[in-house]
């Protein structure tokens, strides 16, 4: 509903205000007069008409209001199909690269996810005032800089879609790092994108990736402590969700998808296999590295290579990486060194990882590993 209102009014704040008013009127009238035949359309119509009235009132007060033509009141007699689904336009506006990334994330969760400013602030561990400020800044820039409300032209679409998917995946990873409600929200956003852009393999790839990773959520922590994949209780995996993840991956493959999210989803699917096909995982990480040039991907490949060729081969890759500030590098190094019985070096590596780690459950995991050496 909000997406359609923003499309109609060209203004995020007016749209939110109008939607709130419409809900308030519904709360008052529906119990008294009964629920209308098309509740969604009724709310749309009411919100639009309220917004138009408000713009007219402000016009009279202030001739300089920068609204365009004031639209006519919409007909009262409408059904749901009268209002176009403009969520796709909305997400491309919210994830426009001219907005700061934190603003993109906040705006997407606020307008598409329907989260309150307070909920978003809590999820990202920032004060509510800070989050409100982020939202205000992003909305002001959309208006002042003329960021369009539309799906980008074909030649811009690959880059812009990548920006949208990056925002969704960022939200998911925040959730995966401990705030589960964000992971669920990211999956919902991804699935909405699948409906809106069914021919884009990377969209299906991202949804597959999120579903496959999230399906193992319950097994990933035991009493608040981190459990690595080989030690996870497979009984705790959500098989239905793994199935949905694999189905999304199949959709991506059927569209000839071979982009970064599709490859990551393929890796996640193999991780959930029994037995785990490490040579294939190592090869896919190689493919992903060619696509992304990311040293973090190389680190993951090193772990897979260690499973295939032994810890020394993995360690050689790890030691070639320039990732000193990344605690996973030191944790992976420590693990490989301990498999090689190089205990003193392993200890030093765990100590370095502990200096860098933030999340409590990861810290406890590293401390247990260090103590067990």
């Amino acid at each position, binding site marked *: 509903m909000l997406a359609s209102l923003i499309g109609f009014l060209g203004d995020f704040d007016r749209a939110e205000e109008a939607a709130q008013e419409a809900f308030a009127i519904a709360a008052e009238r529906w119990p008294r007069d009964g629920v209308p035949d098309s509740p969604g359309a009724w709310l749309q119509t009411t919100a639009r008409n309220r917004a138009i009235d408000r713009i007219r009132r402000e016009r009279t007060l202030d001739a300089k209001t920068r609204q365009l033509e004031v639209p006519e009141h919409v007909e009262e007699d409408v059904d749901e199909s009268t209002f176009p689904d403009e969520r796709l336009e909305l997400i491309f506006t919210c994830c426009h690269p001219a907005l700061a990334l934190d603003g993109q994330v906040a705006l997407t969760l606020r307008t598409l996810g329907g989260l309150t400013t307070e909920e978003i602030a809590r999820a990202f561990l920032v004060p509510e005032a800070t989050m409100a400020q982020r939202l205000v800044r992003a909305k002001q820039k959309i208006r*002042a*800089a003329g960021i369009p409300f539309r799906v980008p032209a074909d030649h811009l679409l690959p880059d812009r879609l990548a920006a949208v998917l990056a925002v969704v995946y960022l939200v998911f990873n925040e959730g995966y790092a401990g705030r589960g409600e964000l992971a669920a929200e990211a999956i919902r956003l991804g699935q909405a994108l699948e409906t809106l852009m069914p021919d884009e393999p990377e969209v299906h790839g991202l949804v597959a990736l999120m579903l496959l990773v999230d399906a193992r959520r319950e097994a990933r922590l035991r009493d608040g402590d981190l459990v690595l994949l080989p030690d996870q209780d497979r009984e705790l995996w959500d098989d239905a969700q793994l199935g949905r993840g694999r189905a999304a991956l199949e959709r991506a493959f059927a569209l000839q998808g071979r982009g970064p999210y599709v490859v990551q989803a393929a890796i996640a699917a193999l991780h959930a296999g029994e037995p785990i096909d490490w040579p294939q995982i190592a090869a896919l990480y190689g493919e992903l590295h060619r696509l992304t040039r990311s040293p973090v991907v190389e680190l993951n490949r090193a772990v897979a290579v260690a499973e295939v060729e032994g810890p020394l081969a993995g360690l050689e890759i790890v030691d070639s990486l320039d990732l000193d500030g990344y605690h996973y590098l030191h944790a992976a190094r420590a693990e490989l060194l301990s498999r090689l019985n190089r205990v003193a070096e392993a200890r030093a590596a765990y100590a370095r990882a502990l200096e860098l780690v933030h999340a409590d459950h990861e810290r406890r995991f590293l401390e247990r590993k260090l103590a067990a050496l």
Partner: protein
Amino acid sequence: MKYALLIYSNDTGWDSLSEDEQSAIYGEYAAISGSAGIIGGQELAGSETATTVRVQDGKTLTTDGPFAETKESLGGFFLFEADDLDAALELAARIPAARRGGAIEVRPVVEH
């Protein structure tokens, strides 16, 4: 909407270009100048010719050089009438300075 495309160029390497390469780049600027929607634009003389003026307590302070010393300097601008930011960003990406170590700052023009 109207946008100012402020061209911050990085001239290192310019002198090592051949005459043909330089005139090809001038040709690109000329083509952009002639594009639909361009309503103005100028190339500025080098920042070594700039003078900065400030007034403090009623007194005019004049100093040599641009306001901020950076490797990139404001080398010119275009004024562009466009439907939205995307059109302005696309045009900005076509400006040679953007790929030659410089940057284009795209700013909406305030219309009173």
